[in-house]
């Protein structure tokens, strides 16, 4: 019975954090894109637009959900449900930190510890194409259908290089379980180079990492591979005919997928919750230092507040004190073994997510034939050669 209660609590926390993070990812994306383009971005709702996700949610919820005439009603309603359900499933196999004991209960920071963890991620991501293809087809509109078809073709094509790029690090790590993978990447070569698969091992997996990242850009329908929703050609692609919460479901699914694939890349290539350099050289002091510095900066800016922004005199120091308190939490002995690994995992995840947004702000979209040619004549052979070399080296050294 204990197992069910712990699982329920963990599932509730994970779902809440994941969905909130999805909502704030929209805010982060708009802010980063805006700063790339020298604009302030969302600024009006709340301080620095921080309440923007909430107002977006209210707007989407209170809008009328239009079901257009001539759609295939069952599949039209089923597709967004399927999209969001499949996007939220994969997170169950991701470990966010090592095992820890709290109130006499030992549990892992993460939902399950599946032996076929990475296969589950692949299976769910291969089912994800149904949601988009069905949504496009059931809408009974040519733009939606084109978007759905493009998406199906693109996801099938890029699944191959993605799977091949995953196999090479698996050969080195020798397990399909995410927790065991991260544990296998523990330790430091020469005392300071972390043994992450992307750096260390008999063959550094830099190429696998790059191929994996390119393929997941296509899998999540992001720029430069966002042809299924290319707004200059297809209005909004597969979700042209969707409105209200059904549109929000597709949107949430896209961001949840980004979070999942970035977590997979973190656990598989970047050593999960392992720190960047050994704790002996003070890596444990990095999280409190960063958060504490942010708190001190807020305190300073509170004292230097502009006359036209009188509230800053109170709000900045208040948030600064909260940040200093958070930094203090990293020194509590009970919380330290949980918070520090989680900090490293979250920071790697956020760096990868930043790369996603950065690419969106930088690169133009591929043309459709270029997209297919790139997958089949460059990415797929490159992944195969990379796998062959890794397999050869592993066979010779082990």
């Amino acid at each position, binding site marked *: 019975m204990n197992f069910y209660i712990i699982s329920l609590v963990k599932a509730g926390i994970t779902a809440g954090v994941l969905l909130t993070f999805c909502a704030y990812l929209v805010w982060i994306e708009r802010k980063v894109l805006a700063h790339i383009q020298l604009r302030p971005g969302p600024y009006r709702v709340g301080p620095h637009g921080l309440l923007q996700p909430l107002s977006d949610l209210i707007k989407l919820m209170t809008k009328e959900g239009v079901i257009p005439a001539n759609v*295939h009603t069952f*599949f039209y309603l089923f597709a967004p449900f399927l999209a969001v359900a499949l996007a939220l499933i994969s997170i169950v196999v991701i470990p966010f930190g090592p095992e820890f004991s709290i109130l006499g209960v030992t549990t892992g920071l993460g939902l399950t510890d599946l*032996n*076929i963890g990475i*296969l*589950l991620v*692949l*299976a769910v991501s*291969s*089912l994800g*194409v*149904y949601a988009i*293809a*069905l949504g496009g*087809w059931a809408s009974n509109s040519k733009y939606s*259908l084109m978007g*759905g*078809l493009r998406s*199906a*073709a693109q*996801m*099938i094509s890029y*699944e191959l290089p993605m799977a091949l790029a995953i196999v090479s690090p698996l050969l080195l790590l020798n397990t*399909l379980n995410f927790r065991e993978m991260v544990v296998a990447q523990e330790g430091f070569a020469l005392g300071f180079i972390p043994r992450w698969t992307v750096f260390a091992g008999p063959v550094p997996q830099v190429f696998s990492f790059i191929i994996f990242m390119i393929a997941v850009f296509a899998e999540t329908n992001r720029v430069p591979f966002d042809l299924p929703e290319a707004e200059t050609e297809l209005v909004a692609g597969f979700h042209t005919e969707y409105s209200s919460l059904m549109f929000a479901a597709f949107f949430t699914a896209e961001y949840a997928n980004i979070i999942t694939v970035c977590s997979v890349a973190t656990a598989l290539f970047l050593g999960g919750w392992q720190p960047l350099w050994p704790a002996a050289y003070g890596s444990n002091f990095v999280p409190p230092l960063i958060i504490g510095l942010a708190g001190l900066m807020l305190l300073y800016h509170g004292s230097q507040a502009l006359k036209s922004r009188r509230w800053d005199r109170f709000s900045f120091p208040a948030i600064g004190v909260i940040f200093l308190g958070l930094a203090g939490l990293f020194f509590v002995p009970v919380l330290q073994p949980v918070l520090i690994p989680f900090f490293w995992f979250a920071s790697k995840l956020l760096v990868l997510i930043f790369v996603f947004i950065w690419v969106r702000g930088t690169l133009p979209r591929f043309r459709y034939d270029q997209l297919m040619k790139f997958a089949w004549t460059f990415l797929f052979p490159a992944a195969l050669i990379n796998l062959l070399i890794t397999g050869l080296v592993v066979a010779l050294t082990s």
Partner: protein
Amino acid sequence: MDAILFLTFAAIAVACAINLVLQTHPISSALSLVGVMTSLAVLYLLLGGSFIAAVQVIVYAGAIMVLFIFVIMLLNTQGERTQPKKNVLPIAIALPLLFSLIGVLAAIVATQVPAGEIVKFGTFSGGDPLTFGRAMFTRYLLPFEVTSVLILIAIVGAVVLAKKEI
């Protein structure tokens, strides 16, 4: 718990299979087949074949059926429009034949099949990727390689047949 899960997913599989035959629209039929395959994967998982379950979803539901749906969407086929038939004769012949087939099968199973061990969920543990891979690349290496060559021949044959000039 295992028995409840088994009954649930077996029922879903059978319901999807019946739906597959009854639906007139190709997309509905294809998606029912996806339902059958994913619920079969759950049954494999219950029997301890975790690797087979994952591969079932990845290959059948995630790759082959996506191609089916892709082709159906490209052809943009409509639902089959059948005229309501007044002819009762086929049904009158088919129903007794169906029941007699079920009766014959039941009689054969009851008399010929020896009573074996009762299947228990969770007792089999050879379905993880390690044992599976070891068996496939040592004991069953020849059948595995022969099958892969056969599939390769089929792919090349399909390309040759589809393309008039190469």
